[in-house]
């Protein structure tokens, strides 16, 4: 028997299977609520994805900022002044008094921008996709 003969012989089974599967599928009632449930999960996935992306960008920018600090020769100055400081809430005021770091706007912007992105991006993008 050639493959063509074989196909012809099995054609009634094909038809029977197709019509039975179609009839069985018709018995399944639509579930309009499913789209809503899926949408909730898709939105949750999008929020999580945006947060992870924001985190990745924040970490990346922080590393870039750190490398700028290190390679611009200010690292040792920063370390020296930090070593002289006392930890705790007085750190910020000390930074303001310390000419090496806080009075340099470029340095401040360089350090603060990635932190701001790190904190604000996930919040803003999360509320946009919700």
């Amino acid at each position, binding site marked *: 028997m050639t493959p063509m003969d*074989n196909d012809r*012989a*099995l054609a*009634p*089974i*094909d038809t*029977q*299977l*197709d019509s*039975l*599967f179609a*009839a*069985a*599928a*018709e*018995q*399944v*009632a*639509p*579930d*309009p609520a*499913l*789209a*809503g*449930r*899926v*949408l909730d*999960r*898709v*939105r949750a*996935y*999008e929020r999580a994805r945006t947060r992870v992306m924001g985190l990745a960008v924040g970490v990346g920018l922080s590393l870039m900022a750190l490398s700028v600090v290190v390679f611009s020769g200010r690292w040792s100055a920063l370390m020296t002044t930090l070593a002289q400081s006392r930890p705790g809430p007085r750190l910020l005021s000390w930074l303001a008094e310390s000419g090496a770091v806080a009075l340099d706007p470029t340095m401040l912007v360089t350090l603060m921008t990635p932190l701001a992105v790190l904190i604000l991006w996930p919040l803003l993008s999360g509320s946009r996709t919700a």
Partner: protein
Amino acid sequence: MALATPEVTDARLMAAVLAQRDTRAFSELVRRHEQGVRAFLRQLCRGRLDLVDDLAQETFLKAFQRLHQARDGARLRQWFNGIAYREFLMWQRAAKRYGEVLDEVARQPEALHEPDPASLELDRLLGVLSPSERTAIVLSHGGGLSHSEIADALELPLGTVKSLIARGKARIQAAFATPAEPSMSATGAGGC
């Protein structure tokens, strides 16, 4: 744009999702295809309605994440069914790991649906097949997947898929060709 009109094709909705991550467009795709996907999953799961709904949700979530991999908007139904089959396989593997717990859940009567005559007849026909033949035929006739899509889903050579399907159909024909043949109970694997 009114999305729920037939003029807006699946391909157009897909493009909207891919370009703008438009969740409303994706919701419309789900609305269009959920019935078909659930019907297909019901054949795989043998009527476990709770499982069908869970797997359908997982299927559409995965579809959203991988929509860029769908090549053809015209064959979106088959693409969804391919994902549904892989989700079913993952569930089946987990079910083997946690077999005892799931057996207990499966015994709960509310988790099963009352089979319709067409499903009963299908079970009767598919009951004579081996698990791999049954799976290939359900993917082909129930899921509408092409032979090459089935080969991808089952990770088998194309020739093997073709012969599984042909052999399965020949077996059904041989088993039910004579009117005196008694009904066979549905015992084939490939289901839940």
